[in-house]
């Protein structure tokens, strides 16, 4: 998966937004199908429908036409444009185009348009996401003269699911803060039943909320990938930022609560004290199954960091780790090295591992390796509820470790059965032989 659709998904966390990919229509169609399969929701995503001729001559008219069409049909509150490999190879001056279009088309004067450069052939999904949020901050946040002491900005990384965001929001609110989440997929892609049908996103961060971010007390960047956007906000509006790169595991969540308690001057609410105690108990109960287990993980950097550390803290051994793009979070990850590569690389290094964690495309590999498979990241298209997968906070950390331990227990039971029934054995061997043919490369 590449930068443009990372950017597009970030735009989908804004309310009333229509994301547009500036490229040929396939760029949009593929991204759209991918998100539909993952979220099982209507996905707003448009295209400038570039063709051979417009690519050579320049896509200004296509952008203009797209903006006019979208403004008229979808009536969005904001439009987000991401470039693609096609238009970046040509090298177009989109900022200049937008200026000219605005001069020519007064009817577009009131429509905010945010443009991000996201070539497919550079970086990865989370880079596109991070750049997009930084750009939204640059263009839409308004510096304020007064501070709103109970208002906190939360910049959410692409590794957080709508379910995660809901949890984080509740935690922050329990300290008496009013958080503004940017982007907020928990409003737009959490699978709710709306009253009416709109062609744009429904739910998500509102334009006036984004504008008001300049008056917040502080910004918490959730994930290393959000550091750039948080810095941009600090430079522009003087809102101090802090980085919370990990939200999985006892010690990381403790750190988050300590931060919130200090910021608010309030004690940690009773419910979370109880949840912490439950998590500690869960760690004790599950350590029998997790200690010493060799795992292989394929994930984008920030997700890899969260899951990798937490598993290591539970006694697992990170044997293989593959990611999509370089990041400083790899430096203290308890693994020999993180390879930037694809699932074929991961499969080669995962030999001998007892547990695989990656997105749904890992299913064929897991079948070949015959090891338990836990789905994380994007896309998850062969299981329901991807949007509600909760991995953060005390509760999410507890869920995760139960799920993983249960997978390992189930695998052990299967193995015992395999030893017990000789007639079953031949059957299982047949099934294995069938699975051995095949496939796959490229981690998205």
């Amino acid at each position, binding site marked *: 998966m590449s930068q443009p659709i990372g950017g597009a998904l970030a735009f989908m966390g804004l309310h009333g937004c229509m994301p547009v990919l500036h490229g040929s*229509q*396939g*760029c949009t169609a593929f991204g759209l*199908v991918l998100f539909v399969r993952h979220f099982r929701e209507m996905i707003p995503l448009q295209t400038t429908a570039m063709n051979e001729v417009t690519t050579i001559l320049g896509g200004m008219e296509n952008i203009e036409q797209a903006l006019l069409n*979208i403004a008229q049909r979808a009536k969005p509150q904001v439009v987000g444009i991401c470039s693609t*490999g096609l238009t970046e190879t040509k090298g177009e001056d989109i900022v200049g185009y937008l200026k000219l279009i605005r001069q020519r088309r007064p009817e577009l004067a009131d429509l905010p348009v945010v443009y991000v450069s996201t070539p*497919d052939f550079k970086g990865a999904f989370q880079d596109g996401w991070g750049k997009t949020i930084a750009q939204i901050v640059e263009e839409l946040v308004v510096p304020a003269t007064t501070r709103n002491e109970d208002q906190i900005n939360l910049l959410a990384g692409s590794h957080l699911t709508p379910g995660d965001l809901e949890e984080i929001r509740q935690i922050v609110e329990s300290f008496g803060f009013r958080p503004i989440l940017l982007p907020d997929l928990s409003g737009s892609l959490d699978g709710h039943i709306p009253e009416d049908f709109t062609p744009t996103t429904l739910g998500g961060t509102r334009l006036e909320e984004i504008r008001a971010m300049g008056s917040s007390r502080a910004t918490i960047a959730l994930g290393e990938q959000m550091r750039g956007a948080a810095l941009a906000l600090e430079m522009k509006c003087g809102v101090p930022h802090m980085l919370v790169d990990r939200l999985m595991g006892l010690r990381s969540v403790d750190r988050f609560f300590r931060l919130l308690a200090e910021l608010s001057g309030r004690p940690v609410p009773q419910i979370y004290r109880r949840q912490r105690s439950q998590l500690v108990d869960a760690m004790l109960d599950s350590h029998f199954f997790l200690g010493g287990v060799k795992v292989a993980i394929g994930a984008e950097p920030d997700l890899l960091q969260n899951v990798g550390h937490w598993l290591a803290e539970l006694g697992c051994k990170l044997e293989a780790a593959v990611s999509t793009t370089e990041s400083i979070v790899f430096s203290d990850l308890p693994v020999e090295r993180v390879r930037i590569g694809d699932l074929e690389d991961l499969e080669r290094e995962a030999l001998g591992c007892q547990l695989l964690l990656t997105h749904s495309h890992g299913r064929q590999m897991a079948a070949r390796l015959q090891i338990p498979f836990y789905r994380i990241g994007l896309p998850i*298209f062969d299981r329901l509820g991807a949007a509600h997968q909760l991995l953060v906070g005390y509760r999410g950390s507890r869920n995760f470790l139960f799920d993983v331990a249960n997978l390992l227990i189930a695998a052990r039971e299967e193995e015992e059965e395999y030893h017990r029934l000789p007639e079953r054995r031949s059957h299982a061997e047949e099934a294995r032989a069938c699975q051995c043919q095949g496939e796959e490369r490229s981690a*998205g």
Partner: protein
Amino acid sequence: MSSVSEKVQAVFQEPGCAKNRAKSEKERKKGCTKQLQPGAAAGGCAFDGAKIALQPITDVVHLVHGPIACEGNSWDNRGSKSSDSHLYRMGFTTDIREMDVVYGGEKRLFRAIKEAIDRYDPPAIFVYQTCVPALIGDDIEAVCQAAKKQFGRPVVPVQSPGFAGSKNLGNKLAGEALLDHVIGTEEPSYTTPYDVNIIGEYNLAGELWQVQPLFDQLGIRILACISGNAKYREIASCHRAKATILVCSKAMINIARKMEERYGIPFFEGSFYGISDMSDALRNLAGLLVRQGAPGELLSKTELLIRREEQKAWEKLKVYQKRLAGKRVLLITGGVKSWSVVSALQEVGMEIVGTSVKKSTEEDKERIKKVMGEEAHMIEEMTPREMYRMLKEARADIMLSGGRSQFVALKAKMPWLDINQERHHAYAGYEGMVALVAEIDRALYNPVWQEVRLPAPWTEG
């Protein structure tokens, strides 16, 4: 690049297409796809179309020359089934980076071909051209030629950059690649008077397997199916078939017509959807084979089979007739299915309150009028919002469409059934039509609809 535009012109001129024959010389040159509307377009690109058409070939490596997005974002999203090799489900891409854009990606492509051959030893490699390398001028034909010479096996260039046009055009460009580089390059080990090709069947959800037993019973051998569950060798040697049946409307008509021109294989258009359509297809195919020299008894054998199978299917459908009579269907799909499914649903007493004709040809529309009457409610273009209203106001009981518009129905808390390419159930042949009706029944009578429509405890009244 010139070869791409030549190919595009060639498929635009396609004389086998009825729609094309009705146009003037000038109109034809402009092509058959509507100009894509920026900001209001939907659907895939030419690369998507080419991949859809060829990916079902199971035993070859499908290598996509382009940035990660083209293959990465679309990987494993089509439901073509295979009875044998699973190599086709593996995603291969050259994943070109910034430096390749500057220095050219040809060497990287050559290395990728070598790597794929070394590791997976496929009988052939298909190389797909995408926008970025097409724009910087990577000559994939030359690379494929060189690789073919060096490694001694077919390396087939598919000229399908996304910006060339729509999905439908991509289908045709894929057909051209087969015609230029694959078909007629090998000989079948033996031939029979009952050898046929099926063109335009992709074995989605295993639909070919619903039809194949019928062919088997008649002794008709499928020499090659283009391209569902196909092997490279089968397609390479399919020029020895005696007749061709073209399904899925016009998408790959260029293959059928050019094979008629080059190898004298006659073809006809048919459909496997719907009971009477399936019978017509078998009847026409048998007739064509007999005209091509097969023994005349095939005709009576076919009639017998048709009578037996139709009877069986009707018997099974009877159960549903009472339950489904009068239920109203909103049908949002394209092409052939807009009429072939209509007639089948009417046969069990359902009422079609609307059918979309966006992708249908004039001929398709005539067929719809024939089965639905002059006042047939044909929908040229309907926004999702209008569909939503129609369902919300209960002017239809169920919607049948492609996966992308499912949420229109589901969010209105109305039943929906997938009848496009991502579906998990097979609906071809006699058996398939019974399966479709059974699925509609299952969807309509699920008690969950009453449950989800319950008012929340905090709502008034």
